[in-house]
C-alpha cells in the first residue's frame, strides 16, 4: 500500500516502473508516442508506476503493483480547485 515518505523543497514526482519510456531524438518521437499510447488495452495488464501522494495528513509514495489482490479505481483529473 501507499507508504509514508519524507518531503523536502523539491517537488516529488513519479513515473513508470520497470521498462523505461525513453525520450529519444526528433524523428523517433512520433513513433514512440504511438507505442506509448497503445500500452492501454482492456483485458491487458495495466502498466506499473510509482507516484508521490497525499493521504490523510501524510505524504506517501504509492505503487500500482502494491495493490495487486485488490480492485483499483485509478482516476485522472485536470487539476485541484478546477470546479468539476
Amino acid at each position, binding site marked *: 500500500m501507499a507508504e509514508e515518505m519524507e518531503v523536502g523543497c523539491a517537488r*516529488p*514526482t*513519479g513515473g513508470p516502473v520497470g521498462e523505461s519510456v525513453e525520450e529519444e531524438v526528433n524523428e523517433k518521437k512520433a513513433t514512440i508516442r504511438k507505442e506509448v499510447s497503445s500500452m492501454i488495452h*482492456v483485458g491487458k495488464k*495495466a*502498466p506499473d508506476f510509482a*507516484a508521490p501522494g497525499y493521504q490523510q495528513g501524510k505524504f506517501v509514495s504509492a505503487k500500482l503493483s502494491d495493490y495487486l489482490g485488490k480492485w*483499483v479505481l485509478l482516476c485522472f483529473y*485536470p487539476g485541484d480547485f478546477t470546479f468539476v
Partner: protein
Amino acid sequence: MSIDSVFVHKMWDDNELSKMVDGGVPFPMLSDTGGKVGKIFGVFDEEAGVENRGRFIIDPDGIIQGYEVLTPPVGRNVGETFRQVQAFQLVRESKGKEATPSGWKPGKVTLKPGPDLVGKVWEVWKTEMAFD
C-alpha cells in the same frame, strides 16, 4: 491523480474537499507532475498540459477491465463506475460462468452462456431490462 504537487493536494483536501467529505479524501491523492503516468495511460493532454478525466478499473490481477476518458468540463457518474465494478466482480466470482447483460445491476438477472442459451436470450432478457 493530477499534475498538481502533493502540497497542492493537501491544500485542496484541507480547504475544500474535507468540507464535502467528512475527514477528507480517504485514498491517496497522487501527483503526476509532468504527466509521465498520464502519458502511458493515454490521458495526458500535451497542449493543455493537464490530464483528461480518465478512469480505469483494474482487477486484483492488475488487468485493466474497463476505462472511460472524458474531456475536462464533464464530470463522471460514480454510480455507473460502481455498477461496472460490481458486474466485473460478479463475473470474476463466477469464474466466467455468468455474464451481465445490458442494464444489469445487482439483483437483476445474469446470463449463463452455453449451448442452451444460444438464440434464447430473448426468453430470459427483455429490452426494458436495459433501462432502470
